[in-house]
């Protein structure tokens, strides 16, 4: 520590590696005072002028603002407010080209000065030494001060360090050619600069304050010396002129001999560096409550007739400054913002002056010649010799060209301060710095992408976990519910039967729902479902009627029995004519009679039915001699027991229903296939009547009601939508075909009936039908969409079909479909259907048992 100060006092300094001595060109402006320029027509104030975050706008177009009034407020620590540089009206807030090499637009406040330059109320602080640290830092933050040397790092962050500071270094080197802004500022406002330094001293409490200044600014040195005479802590260090002395790390090295390692902040070494311009701004802010609204800008270059340093209000368009300094109109425009070594070309002279703008360079054509053609690197090594960051510029260049970001990072590309020394000395005219800039931006971008990718990965995985969890929870819930139900069922109450059937139906429904969710049932049209539902009921009724297995518990049953009785009576009449009794019929009767009966009527009816059946059998035998075995008839007596009239009616009705279904189906290919599948299934059925039913119907299509039409339109719309969505994946067709197959695979005889019979019912209740169809269409559309993703649908459908065929009584499968169909219909229908299903199932079960028994007995 002591040695550092000793050395400085002796005027001996360290040296940083490399460095160059480009022509200084400072004479253009160094002998002229800072001029105040006229007020521009309008001011453009980008809301972000520094590193960090933009503040939040607190003005709106049309507002009148006073000089020094804040236009944005800070919401995060890294934000810095901007202020109105003069009084006037906010014309607009819009995207405007900003001082950035990209020439991109960013949000800016456009201020129209009123020329009165009216200040907001200011609080002049007579004696800042009475203020505490935090107040001072706050004042700096509120004044919107950001590093004025180059990068524009928010000053209040930089000075608000917790670290113990040994050296506060004031950077007055101004090493870059052409620029004299700091020089002039020190000459004209030395007192203010020193005040600012003292304020920093109070905040940071460093052991020593070092002002690093190059020996090419004698007048500024004199002015500062004069000011710091009675202030021992401040050491003025006059260092030899060399580019880039003004670099942060380089100046630290020169003054203290310390190397700042890569990726380490100087404050961790006990060093804080501030620019002289910043010191001046701090003094202004703290003492006279003047926010950062203007700065010294060197407007220079041999293309100008009057190059000079000017006090420019922030937001002044460059064009205005150029006019003030008499930039010839005919000049081929080439304006550089910043110095010749580290600046960048401006795409447009409407770019505003911002907090970091220290120089506008308008070179004549001979000053900056057109780029020499870049040639291959000759490995002369001069670049490495001059590099102040001790990098290997030629290696960096190769890797930059190869876009090898890994190597670039390894070679510490990010330590490059873009000083341009290497490019300056390169005999091959390789624009080395530009390669580095490109690579740096690319690596930065890649890092952002990597972060984003990592985030996406995490989110993706989190989502997967969540879905898994949900699924498990759902399964758990279902399992619990099922267990509860089973427990209830096994409790052995009187309603056990009822319960059982209800549970079975519910189970079937759940199953069907699941299937539907995964797109299995996607294709089953509403008609189909409904018909199956109705069919199940009808069959159950018919069976009951035929075999008269009395349940005796529901009113429905009674009705059915009555109906059956009537039917049977008719059959009796018919039968009476024939007077023929088969053995098997007798057996049937016997079997039936063994069952306990509740009513006399029933008994009679049963006998009659048996007779009728026998008759019908005979008839059937005549009609279809090659067909049905006696067992079959025994099992499904209802078909045959129905009189000719009934059968005809049923057939017609079925035909109508079928025709309707067909018409609906015609809209979409897949539906056609389905229908065909059904048709196949029907034709496979041994019962010829059904086949007829299918052929017959088309005549009847004309009878379709208005409701039907509406329903069809709705269905078509829904289907079309679903199709569109499904169009992305080819699996739909497959699924449909699978469905069709499934239907055809169903060998069960009863199924065919199921398809046809129920149609009567669906066609009779037009309103219900309509509702159901719409609902079905919607359901289908949904199911289709869902199904679109899953290839496994086909398999599932087949599985379902198999399940059905395996079920000898068919009841369960039907119940499945039925339930599925009904779940999608309106709540009322749903309920009814469910009840009906449960009833039907209970009946059917009983019947099945009975039939088995019959078979055994026979």
């Amino acid at each position, binding site marked *: 520590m002591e040695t550092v100060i000793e050395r400085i006092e002796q005027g001996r300094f360290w040296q940083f590696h490399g460095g160059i001595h*480009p022509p200084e060109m400072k004479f253009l402006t160094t002998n002229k005072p800072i001029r105040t320029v006229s007020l521009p027509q309008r001011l453009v104030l980008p809301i972000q002028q520094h590193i960090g975050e933009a503040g939040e706008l607190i003005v709106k177009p049309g507002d009148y603002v006073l000089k020094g009034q804040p236009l944005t407020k800070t919401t995060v620590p890294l934000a810095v407010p901007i202020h109105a540089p003069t009084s006037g009206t906010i014309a607009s807030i819009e995207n405007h080209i900003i001082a950035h090499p990209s020439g991109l637009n960013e949000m800016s406040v456009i201020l129209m000065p009123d020329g009165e330059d009216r200040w907001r109320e200011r609080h002049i602080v007579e004696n800042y030494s009475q203020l505490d640290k935090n107040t001072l830092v706050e004042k700096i933050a509120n004044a919107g001060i950001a590093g004025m040397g180059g990068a524009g790092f928010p000053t209040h962050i930089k000075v608000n360090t917790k670290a113990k500071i040994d050296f506060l270094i004031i950077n007055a080197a101004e090493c870059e050619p052409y620029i004299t802004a700091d020089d002039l500022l020190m000459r004209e406002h030395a007192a203010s600069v020193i005040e600012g330094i003292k304020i920093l001293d109070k905040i940071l409490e460093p052991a020593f304050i070092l002002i690093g200044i190059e020996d090419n600014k004698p007048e500024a040195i004199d002015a500062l010396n004069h000011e710091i005479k009675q202030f021992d802590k401040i050491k003025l260090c006059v260092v030899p002129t060399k580019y880039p002395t003004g670099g942060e790390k380089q100046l630290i090295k020169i003054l203290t001999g310390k190397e700042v390692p890569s990726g380490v902040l100087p404050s961790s070494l006990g060093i804080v560096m501030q620019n002289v311009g910043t010191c001046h701004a701090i003094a202004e802010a703290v003492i006279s409550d003047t926010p950062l609204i203007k700065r010294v800008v060197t407007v220079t270059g041999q293309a100008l007739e009057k190059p000079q340093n000017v006090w420019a209000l922030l937001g002044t368009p460059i064009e205005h400054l150029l006019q003030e300094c008499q930039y010839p109109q005919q000049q081929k425009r080439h304006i550089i913002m910043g110095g010749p070594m580290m600046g960048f*070309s401006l795409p447009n002279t409407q770019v505003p002056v911002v907090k970091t703008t220290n120089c506008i360079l308008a070179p004549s054509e001979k000053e900056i010649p057109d780029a020499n053609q870049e040639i291959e690197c000759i490995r002369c090594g001069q670049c490495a010799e001059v590099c102040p960051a001790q990098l290997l510029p030629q290696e960096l260049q190769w890797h930059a060209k190869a876009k090898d970001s890994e190597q670039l990072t390894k070679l510490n590309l990010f330590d490059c301060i873009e000083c341009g020394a290497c490019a300056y000395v390169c005999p091959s005219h390789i624009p080395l710095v530009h390669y580095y800039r490109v690579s740096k931006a690319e690596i930065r*971008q890649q890092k952002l992408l990597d972060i984003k990718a990592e985030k996406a990965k995490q989110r993706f995985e989190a989502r997967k976990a969540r879905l898994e969890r949900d699924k498990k929870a759902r399964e758990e819930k279902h399992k619990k519910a099922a267990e509860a139900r089973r427990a209830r069922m096994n409790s052995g109450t009187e309603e056990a039967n009822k319960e059982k059937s209800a549970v079975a139906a519910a189970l079937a429904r759940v199953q069907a729902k699941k299937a539907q969710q995964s797109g299995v049932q996607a294709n089953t049209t509403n008609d189909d479902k409904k018909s199956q539902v109705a069919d199940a009921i009808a069959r159950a009724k018919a069976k009951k009627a035929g075999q008269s297995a009395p349940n005796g518990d529901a009113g429905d049953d009674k009705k059915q029995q009555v109906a059956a009785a009537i039917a049977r009576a008719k059959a009796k009449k018919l039968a009476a004519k024939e007077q023929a009794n088969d053995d098997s019929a007798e057996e049937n009767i016997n079997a039936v009679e063994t069952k306990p009966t509740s009513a006399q009527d029933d008994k009679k009816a049963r006998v009659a039915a048996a007779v009728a059946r026998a008759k019908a059998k005979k008839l059937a035998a005549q009609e279809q001699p090659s067909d049905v075995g006696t067992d079959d008839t025994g099992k499904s007596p209802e078909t045959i027991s129905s009189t000719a009239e009934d059968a005809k009616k049923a057939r017609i009705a079925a035909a109508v229903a079928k025709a309707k279904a067909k018409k609906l189906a015609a809209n979409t290919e897949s539906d056609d296939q389905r229908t065909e599948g059904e048709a196949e299934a029907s034709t496979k059925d041994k019962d010829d009547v059904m086949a007829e039913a299918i052929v017959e119907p088309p005549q009847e299509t004309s009878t379709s009601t208005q409701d039907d039409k509406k329903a069809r339109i709705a269905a078509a719309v829904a289907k079309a939508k679903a199709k569109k969505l499904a169009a992305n994946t080819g699996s739909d067709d497959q699924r449909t075909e699978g469905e069709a197959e499934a239907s055809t695979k169903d060998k069960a005889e009863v199924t065919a009936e199921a398809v046809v019979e129920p149609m009567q019912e669906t066609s009779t209740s037009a309103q219900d039908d309509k509702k159901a169809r719409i609902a079905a269409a919607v359901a289908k559309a949904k199911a289709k969409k869902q199904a679109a993703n899953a290839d496994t649908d086909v398999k599932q459908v087949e599985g379902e079909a198999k399940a059905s065929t395996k079920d000898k009584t068919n009841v369960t499968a039907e119940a499945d479909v039925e339930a599925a169909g009904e779940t999608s219909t309106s709540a009322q229908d749903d309920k009814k259907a469910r009840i009906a299903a449960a009833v039907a199932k209970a009946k059917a079960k009983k019947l099945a048992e009975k039939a088995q028994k019959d078979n055994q007995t026979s």
Partner: protein
Amino acid sequence: MTVLIAILVVGLISLAFGALLGFASVKFKVEGDPLAEQIDAILPQTQCGQCGYPGCKPYADAVANGEAINKCAPGGDDTIKKIADLMGVEPIAMDEAHETDNTPKVAFIIEEDCIGCTKCIQACPVDAIIGTTKQMHTIIADECTGCDLCVAPCPVDCIEMRPIPQTTRNWQWDLANIPVTQID
């Protein structure tokens, strides 16, 4: 006898060293990244499924097991090259069946058209969409990977993919645009 002793001694020594080596291999085991993990780290994590796998990790696993390395469209040629380097194979051209336009995009919901059906939420692999039934939905642009998966399920076609706008933060220096500005 001496032969036996020699054999015994040599045998013992070899046993001892064998044990030592075995112990060392367990104790100082180097936890290498499995190949799939390394590949996964290279993939862009867009989770778009364009590779034919339901996400980047499954594709990484598949590549580790011999799947072609040129199926990740969002990654583009850079990713192919990196995977090729990692696996020690020759880089190959992007699979022709895949779209090669990998300009970064984010999804955008035209909010006045949204009917709140939540379909897009179900499709998004990274949960970048917020909204609920019958409410307007919107996309968190920062989280969106631009995978395109939410566009198709939308029944009212109100999601569109927009290129990420260029700002000073993601702007890239263009070598061709930089005039060489040194002085002598």
